[in-house]
């Protein structure tokens, strides 16, 4: 790890101010991605602005049609939250599938979404649950948020403060794990909002999470596993690595989507 300066602001305002001054500075949330990258010397920020003690950034709020999760809420807290489980059980279940227990105790939703790892789980949920990413500056809709490989709509020093998920009628997340890293080789989040509004978020398969519109259309017509079982996803543009070829990933999208629908119907 290269040397850096460490800051511990106690409010979002202070954090944003610091970030504005330090061009090569980065926010530090759980550190589960950032510290990893720094250890391998793949990332060398000049300053770390630790969000860990900013109380206003953590916590879960449920209001009728939406679940709002503070940026610094840990994966384990989302997974265990009675409110989340009641409102969007599939979201709690998804959070409980991230990494491992120890990682879930530190990793945060804000960090995950700012990082936008192509194989991260939250992005699939954000897309399927039509979430809004709230920052210190603005509200960003799910469809506008993800821009590409590790790229998001966030501007330099823009701070995610919370993420608000819409409560679906039913939904489910199916994850086919990368055997080594345990990230998603392919993860599919299916959410049925009723009256023919179904959203399908796919992660792990492409450079960044995306919606599978062909499946959305089929499921909007009929929310049943058969509706998607025969859909052949095109492998073009999907990720290719040791663990899965584009063809295999394309195939897995269909299988995982079908299984997510089965699960949602249970």
């Amino acid at each position: 790890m290269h040397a850096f300066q460490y800051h511990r602001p106690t409010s979002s305002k202070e954090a944003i101010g610091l970030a504005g001054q330090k061009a090569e500075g980065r926010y530090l949330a759980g550190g589960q991605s950032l510290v990893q990258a720094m250890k391998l010397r793949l990332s060398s920020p000049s300053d770390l602005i630790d969000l860990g003690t900013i109380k206003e950034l953590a916590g879960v709020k449920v209001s009728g049609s939406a679940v709002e999760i503070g940026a610094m809420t840990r994966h384990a807290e989302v997974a265990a939250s009675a409110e989340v489980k009641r409102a969007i059980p599939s979201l709690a279940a998804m959070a409980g599938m991230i990494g491992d227990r120890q990682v879930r105790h530190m990793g945060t939703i804000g960090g995950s979404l700012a990082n936008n790892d192509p194989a991260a789980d939250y992005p699939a949920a954000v897309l399927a649950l039509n979430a809004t990413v709230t920052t210190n500056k603005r509200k960003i809709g799910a469809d506008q948020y993800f821009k590409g490989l590790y790229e998001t709509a966030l501007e330099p020093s823009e701070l995610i403060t919370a993420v608000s998920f819409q409560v679906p009628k039913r939904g489910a997340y199916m994850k086919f794990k990368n055997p080594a890293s345990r990230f998603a080789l392919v993860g599919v989040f299916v959410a049925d909002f009723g009256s023919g509004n179904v959203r399908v978020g796919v992660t792990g398969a492409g450079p960044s999470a995306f919606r599978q519109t062909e499946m959305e259309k089929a499921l909007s017509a009929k929310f049943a596993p058969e509706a998607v079982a025969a859909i052949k996803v095109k492998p073009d543009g999907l990720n290719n690595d040791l663990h899965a070829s584009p063809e295999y990933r394309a195939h897995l999208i269909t299988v995982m989507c079908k299984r997510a629908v089965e699960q949602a119907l249970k």
Partner: protein
Amino acid sequence: MTTSLIGARVPRKEDYRFLTGAGQYTDDVALAGQTYAAFVRSPHAHANIRRVSTDKAKRAPGVIAVYTGADLAAAKVGGLPCGWLITDVKGQPMKEPPYPVLAQGKVRHVGERVAVVVAESAAQARDAAELVEVDYQPLPAVASAAKARSSGAIHEIAPDNVCYVWALGDKSAVDAAFAKAAHVTKLEFVNNRLIPNAIEPRAVNAVYSRADDSTTLYVASQNPHVERLLMTAFVLGLPENKVRVVAPDVGGGFGSKIYLYAEDVACTWAARQLARPVKWTADRSEAFLSDAHGRDHLTVAELALDKDGKFLAMRVRTTANLGAYLSTFASCIPTILYATLLAGQYTTPVIYCEVTAVFTNTTPVDAYRGAGRPEATYVVERLVETAAREMKVEPAELRRKNFIRQFPYQTPVALCYDTGNYEATLEAAMKIADVAGFKDRREQSLRRGKLRGLGYACYIEACGIAPSNVAGSLGARAGLYEAGEVRVHPTGTVTVFTGSHAHGQGHETTFAQVVADRLGLGMEQVDIVHGDTSKILFGMGTYGSRSIAVGGTAIVKALDKVIAKGKKIAAHLLEASEGDIEYDKGVFKVAGTDKKKTFGEVAFAAYVPHNYPLDKLEPGLNENAFYDPTNFTFPAGSYVCEVEVDRETGATQIVGFTAVDDFGRVINPMIVEGQVHGGLAQGIGQALTEGCAYDDTGQLITGSLADYCIPRANDLPLFKLDMRETPCTHNPLGVKGCGEAGAIGAPAAVMNAITDALGVKDVPMPATAQNVWRAMHRA
């Protein structure tokens, strides 16, 4: 003290320190004036080095020294030696290229060491390592064994990249048998390259004392004496009596910590230059690049059968990837430890095996748990199972038809098995695995959309390597005996010094059981000491499942000497003749009388010899012994694996695994079972999840645990184990060794199960979900 300790589930003596964080691993050793080393490693698989510039690095904060290959050459530091000379089919010695500690003008694999930086802190050493500028001229590289012969030379002395072509067996007899065979089964496969990944990374901490011109090296090693011998005699030219090697607690080895590594030498040399302790602990990423890898064979194998399914002959051609250099025992693994095992448990009358060993631009390959024997078992057991399916015979039946049943049995590939009962383990395994109920289970799985398969593997291994003279005639450059010393203290407690080394095997408990049982003492009265050349007289270390068979026997021999001397002392004390003294459960008795002296009383007399036959006997009670085995031991067993394959994704789950082993006499079943569990996990890892991958330019793709998948708890089932005992006939304990069995037998069992589930001839290892899915779609 009436119940025997042999065969008892004695809890381990070593557990307390490990469970309370009191273990002392190499990286835990901190010395006054400690410095830290970081290595500059090649990012290229193959390149000439035009220039190495260390100026910037030397000026960086905290840097004490930076050394390059030129410094080592100037100091006449030798290359790393290979411990086994293979003679090729033409009677020529294998090609032995120099293996420099730091690169000399050329790098031959990614991760090869180019320079070493020593600094006040580990972070400073790393920072400075980034400042070493190396001007590389990249050369074309080759990573795969298949392409090695047609690629540019990696070493001058091996223009075609061939280290040796070696063969065993009667080729013309084999060809003749094939010509008249009713059926021939042929398979072509890769035995996948594995990266050992002991959870403790390699580490060294070297310190030089100017006071007595001595060097002490703490190192995560499986065999400290061998490390010292190789380093002093062949590389650094230091007097052996001035070098102490300590292998403290070692966090797993599996072969990877047998060898003398360049980092060990570089740190030792640097410590002597600087007269300060130099520590290096591998990152996991460095471990991936620099720990010796395992396996990596490309094999074409054929089995000839008559119309009744009797094996007539076996023919095997293997290309073995040795990597860029010859690691310490690399040369004997795909030859001596491989071809000799191809008879398996069967009476195949003639066998021919030809091995071409090649250099590639990859990390050196050496022994990894099983070493040659898993590869051999894979050949035999995949062939046998495939032949059975092709001939529509029950696989178990075909095996039975060909089992060796008469012992001793001389195989056509040099080994002579002393004992075994293969039918017994197979029968037990089939019962425990409920093979009879498999058809029903298969139906049930099918109803859940899963394909179920069952596969066997009946393995044999040769352990307890070896009679030194036999090994010597086969090219070994060292002896393969073991040493042990039993030191009885005046009050009757005992310290035993063994040349074996434990890094998870629990010798402190198992060996203490042997000693306590033989002497009739309590476990708490016996301590086992290992892993320090200054305490232990000599040792060849632990590998090849040799500890109990060879190291344990050395201790038994020393114990016998202790008892013999004790009898002489007791005879004097009891005023009886030596021949009348019996020793039993801690007491020396005059036969047929109630005259007796306890072990403690005799020990005391030996050290406080006031009433003692000083004219005939030296005082003291301290004996040592060397033991050189007269043969290998031959553990064997039968494994049955059951898998379920997800038809849609190809994901494979092990739903049942039964292992019935014959390790001869078992000292501590709890520990032995643990060894089997661990071996099975590594064998299953090879079959399902682990595969080292290089790209065409020689870059390691699986360079971290985020890409290279070692099994997790959730990938494995609870194992069903049982044991059968046919005691080894040529050592006093009747033991055979158990450390590698699981890794040897499991891959074939798993792959036989998967191919059964899919109804295909072969699936490449590792059978990842993607590989299985592809195989289903090809079928």
